[in-house]
């Protein structure tokens, strides 16, 4: 290792990504390729700035775990059930079909059938990280393509467990398993342990996590909240590793169990940055593990093998997707997306070499092919986008219900005020996304079966998670003056398509909100006060219609005044003076109105006295 301190390592990794990723992104290559290039550059086979990748790799794989956890958060159990066809149909067809194709190709190259079978199973895997990140960047993850690819990847994750059991049986010379990650658990015990772990995650997710987060949230300590979220993911990972299962799968399961939890949005927002960074690190390590030595020795062979592999996977996958009735454009995109080798290949290669199924020479070769195929994927995807799609349109439109639905309206603050506005809107069939910071409030509403999320709505990431990018309306009803202003500003800046309706404290706050860009403001006490005043007038003897009209007139006058004072709002003295004057005017107006209105003025339409007078005049 040329640099030994953690700090120096971090410096190198961060510097490489800060330089390479923006350039790659600018050049239209996507961030994944940027990371891979950065990794290749600093790796032991190029600049040699970083050394032992195995350690970093293990750490970086945590990025994949977090990725699957976050995806799990988006998939409610019911949705998972509805995706069973994609997972077990398309997924199984992919693994078996493509595994066989690759094995056949390997046999055609002259390998023993056992080697071929092992290689087929290993190379059929695709890279969850690269596929999902790429689809995300292209905006395809939530569409039909995304669902199909995700189903396949999920099935691959599931099949790692049986593969770990089955692959050693292909050993040419039986070797006592040395690479088993299961630390001595075997056979039935192993199965039992896996079952227990899964049950623990399901039960914990359902019954334990909620109360814990509620407790933590009540302390209102941001960093502890984040720490708890990370602890949860790491805990699940550790548990899964203990029983020898895919940590990514465990994390996904935990995510699914929490998908209905009210803290989901906040969890998502808190963990998101870690996902990005660790995934980046993961891609860098893949880049860095490119064995240039081997590449130099057999450049043509490796390139040919890689391209062959990618061609087989892409073509076969397109065919399979087509057989599952996807339109051609989508089917081809799925094929191209899944055409690389996956990160599990590295694990499985190590495992089968240890188990004596493959020679270590062959293993190194496989690793190189997988790594190169990962590097090439973003490029192939670019080529596919440019030339491959032809006139077949790829459907980016979200498959209804494939993932969490989007909301029309975001209600920030579902307290006394927000509830009235929000319930009215929801009762008329619009989908609302509710955010609040009061734990007791949330609990109360949950008991009545409402989906409401914990979180501070001024946070950009949370707004985004609540669906601010697609929503049409943002109703700001939080009971914090400053935060409301902050929220208007944030929303205006990042989600210009949102119409912002805000609850205002008072006149001044209302102007401030408008200044920041709110479209509509409503002073929180105004309508209530007016309603009570109107009832008061009635009790004082006015006819109901008379009182109603008086209140309506009052409202109109007041709003007109509000508009007229608007230009003066910045000028403190002018404002006070003007509002005092207007206050006086309003008083005059009101008293005149009251004196008059008993008989005339606003009742003018029904006041026939002037007509009567005119007729008397005429008669004389």
């Amino acid at each position: 290792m040329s640099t030994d301190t953690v700090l120096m390592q971090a410096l190198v990794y961060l510097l490489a990504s800060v330089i390479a990723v923006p350039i790659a992104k600018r050049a239209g290559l996507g961030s994944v390729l940027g990371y891979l290039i950065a990794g290749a550059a600093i790796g032991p086979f190029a600049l040699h700035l970083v050394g032992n990748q195995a350690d970093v790799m293990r750490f970086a794989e945590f990025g994949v775990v977090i990725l699957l956890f976050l995806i799990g958060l988006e998939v409610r159990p019911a949705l998972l059930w509805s995706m069973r066809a994609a997972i077990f149909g398309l997924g199984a067809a992919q693994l078996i079909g493509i595994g066989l194709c690759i094995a056949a190709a390997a046999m055609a190259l002259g390998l023993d059938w056992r080697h071929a079978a092992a290689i087929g199973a290993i190379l059929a895997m695709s890279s969850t990280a690269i596929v999902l990140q790429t689809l995300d960047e292209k905006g395809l993850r939530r569409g039909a393509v995304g669902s199909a690819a995700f189903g396949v990847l999920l099935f691959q994750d599931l099949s790692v467990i049986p593969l770990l059991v089955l692959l050693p049986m292909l050993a040419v010379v039986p070797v006592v398993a040395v690479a088993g990650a299961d630390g001595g658990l075997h056979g039935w015990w192993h199965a039992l342990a896996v079952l227990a772990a899964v049950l623990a995650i399901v039960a914990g997710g359902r019954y334990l996590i909620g109360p814990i987060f509620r407790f933590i949230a009540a302390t209102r300590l941001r960093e502890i909240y984040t720490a708890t979220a990370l602890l949860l993911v790491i805990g699940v990972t550790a548990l899964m590793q203990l029983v020898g299962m895919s940590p990514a799968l465990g994390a996904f399961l935990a995510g699914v169990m929490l998908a209905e939890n009210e803290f989901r949005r906040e969890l998502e927002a808190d963990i998101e940055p870690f996902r990005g960074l660790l995934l980046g690190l993961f891609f860098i390590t893949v880049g860095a593990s490119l064995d240039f030595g081997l590449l130099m020795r057999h450049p043509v062979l490796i390139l040919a093998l890689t391209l062959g592999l990618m061609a087989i996977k892409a073509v076969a996958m397109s065919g399979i997707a087509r057989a599952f009735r996807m339109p051609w454009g989508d089917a081809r995109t799925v094929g191209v997306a899944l055409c690389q080798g996956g990160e599990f290949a590295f694990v499985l290669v190590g495992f089968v070499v240890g188990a004596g199924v493959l020679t270590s020479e062959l293993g190194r070769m496989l690793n190189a092919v997988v790594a190169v195929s990962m590097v090439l994927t973003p490029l192939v995807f670019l080529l596919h986008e440019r030339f491959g799609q032809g006139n077949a349109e790829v459907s980016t439109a979200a498959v209804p219900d494939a993932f969490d639905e989007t909301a029309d309206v975001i209600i920030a603050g579902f307290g006394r005020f927000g509830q009235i506005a929000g319930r009215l809107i929801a009762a008329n069939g619009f989908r609302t996304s509710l955010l609040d910071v009061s734990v007791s409030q949330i609990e109360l509403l949950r008991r009545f079966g409402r989906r409401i999320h914990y979180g501070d709505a001024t946070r950009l990431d949370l707004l985004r998670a609540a669906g601010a990018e697609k929503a049409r309306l943002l109703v700001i009803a939080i009971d914090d003056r400053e935060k409301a202003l902050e929220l208007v500003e944030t929303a205006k800046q990042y989600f210009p398509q949102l119409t912002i309706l805000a609850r205002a404290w008072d006149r001044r706050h209302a102007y401030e909100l408008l200044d920041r860009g709110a479209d509509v403001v409503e002073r929180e006490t105004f309508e209530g006060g007016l309603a009570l005043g109107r009832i008061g007038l009635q009790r004082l003897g006015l006819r109901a219609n008379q009182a109603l009209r008086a209140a309506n007139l009052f409202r109109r006058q007041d709003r007109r005044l509000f508009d007229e004072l608007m230009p003066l709002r910045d000028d403190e003295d002018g404002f006070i003076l003007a509002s005092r004057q207007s206050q006086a005017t309003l008083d005059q107006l009101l008293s005149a109105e009251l004196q008059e209105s008993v008989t005339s003025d606003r009742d003018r339409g029904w006041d026939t006295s002037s007509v009567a007078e005119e007729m008397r005049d005429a008669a004389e």
Partner: protein
Amino acid sequence: MKSFWPFGRRKRVIAKPRLAASGPSGGPVLERHNRRMLLILAHPALQRSRVNAALYAAVADMADDVTFHDLYESYADFSIDVEVEQQRLADHDLIILQFPMYWYATPALLKEWLDMVWLHGFAYGRSGTRLHGKTLLCAVTTGGEPEAYTPSGSNRFPIAEFLRPMEATAYLCGLAWAEPFIIHDTFQIDDAGIAIQAARYRKRLAELIAALPVTNSAPATATAA
């Protein structure tokens, strides 16, 4: 969205004429414009309307000559701003009242608007001459077919009889009464039929505008009533 009170700047422009700052008395000052036709639409549930919505949409691009005023959108609470309405009337030469026939009469808000806005001293009476010389056109849709509006039909009287109150109002207030624009049989009319009627409506309005004398008698004034 439109049901929110126009407290913000955006909605204001859509729903009401722009009000410039005005004196303490609050007299509204309307924007200046050269439009000579005022089209007042009164339909309490435009979202359900087939015919009136189509008519309204068919003339929407005539905004250079026509001021559009969706009454139920502006005054859903029946709280009519009398000064603004009077000024608006005064600013135009051609007044179109477009509405579906409800119980042989206008929808309630249009009647309320008449009661509140067409006041003694403004529309009629010795000094009430502000509407003199203008033209009033009623554009009416009816569920009943033409035969229903005959002596042997279910409505017994010709349609003109039901519009007598409006005709008399026009007469009293010194407006010329234009031959009403009627669409019968709205329950049966198909989309093609609606399209034909919409084109006819458009043509009729264009003719009315074209027939105006170029005297330029009352382009928008900028004073309150």
